[in-house]
């Protein structure tokens, strides 16, 4: 039985318990995805740091001309709070505190995610209007490679949240939905972790 159900190549693991739990298996797979995503973000950070020299500004605007502390602070506050509210949704799900509570905290999380995206789009539009476009300099190319990549991830996470809310509405909190939300929670917390790197390196490091 265990030979036929465990995935090939995994049968040398002495503890088979977690292999029989599809949700736990899917979570492990999702960890692999997140770590490869981490490498992508890490290399974008590396590229960005190499583009922090006056030569890479190409006579265009640098971090001190472009970034403002209040905007970065508001974006950080929105995302950090959203990661906490998703935690509350996860807890409501784990301890069966009712579908309504799960949905409520997921909606709060979604709202905060959208606030974050709104602030970010506003910031980018402001930069573009001031002539700070990706093709202006190597530094700006690296900036628009790194920060909007994170924004795209948050967008994907928000779409995923909407899909989960629709699924809860249609079928309720089934085991399948719960397992998907558990992975989304991991994704959302991971995005906040990446944001810690962005506000430290790009915004605080750039303004200091």
């Amino acid at each position, binding site marked *: 039985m265990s030979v036929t159900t465990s995935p090939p190549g995994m049968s040398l693991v002495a503890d088979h318990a977690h292999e029989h739990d599809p949700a736990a298996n899917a979570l*492990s797979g999702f*960890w*692999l995805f997140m*770590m*490869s995503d*981490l*490498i992508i973000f*890490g*290399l974008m*950070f*590396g*590229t960005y*740091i*190499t583009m922090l*020299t006056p*030569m890479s500004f190409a006579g265009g605007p640098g971090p001190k001309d472009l970034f403002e*502390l209040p905007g*970065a*602070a508001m974006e*950080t506050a929105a995302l*950090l*709070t959203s*990661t*906490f509210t998703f*935690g*509350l949704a996860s*807890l409501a799900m*784990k*301890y069966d505190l009712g579908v309504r509570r799960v949905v409520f905290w997921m909606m709060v999380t979604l709202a905060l995610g959208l606030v974050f995206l709104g602030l970010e789009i506003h910031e980018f539009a402001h930069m573009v209007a001031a002539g700070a476009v990706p093709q202006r300099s190597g530094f700006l190319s690296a900036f628009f490679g790194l920060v909007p990549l994170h924004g795209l991830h948050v967008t994907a996470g928000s779409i995923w949240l909407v899909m989960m809310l629709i699924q809860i509405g249609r079928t309720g909190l089934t085991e399948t939905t719960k397992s998907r939300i558990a992975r989304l929670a*991991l994704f959302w*917390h*991971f995005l*906040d*972790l990446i944001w*810690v*790197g962005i*506000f*430290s*390196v790009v915004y*605080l*490091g750039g*303004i*200091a």
Partner: protein
Amino acid sequence: MSTLKRQSRAEAYRHDLRGYQMGFALAAILTIVPFALVATGALPAMAVLWAIGVLGLMQIVVHVRFFLHVDLSREKREELYLMAFSGSLLVVMIAGMLWILFNMYARMM
């Protein structure tokens, strides 16, 4: 029996909730301090950069521990090794990248 079970469940919930609250509070402090340092300019620029780096790394540890729930326990060993391996790969790649490119930059000056 069932009340005992319910009680321990409520306790487990409170314990988990405290974890998220603790993580949120620590992350907020570790965010506010570097923002305040940059806003006030109380320290010299180099010290501020060091503070941003150290506090950022501390906050990453807080997020991993309280939000991603990866700690030093045996059940989380797989994720911990995966993160440690990915992290070390990343350090090699980023450090190598910066070393080579800043070396070339210095030579071109």
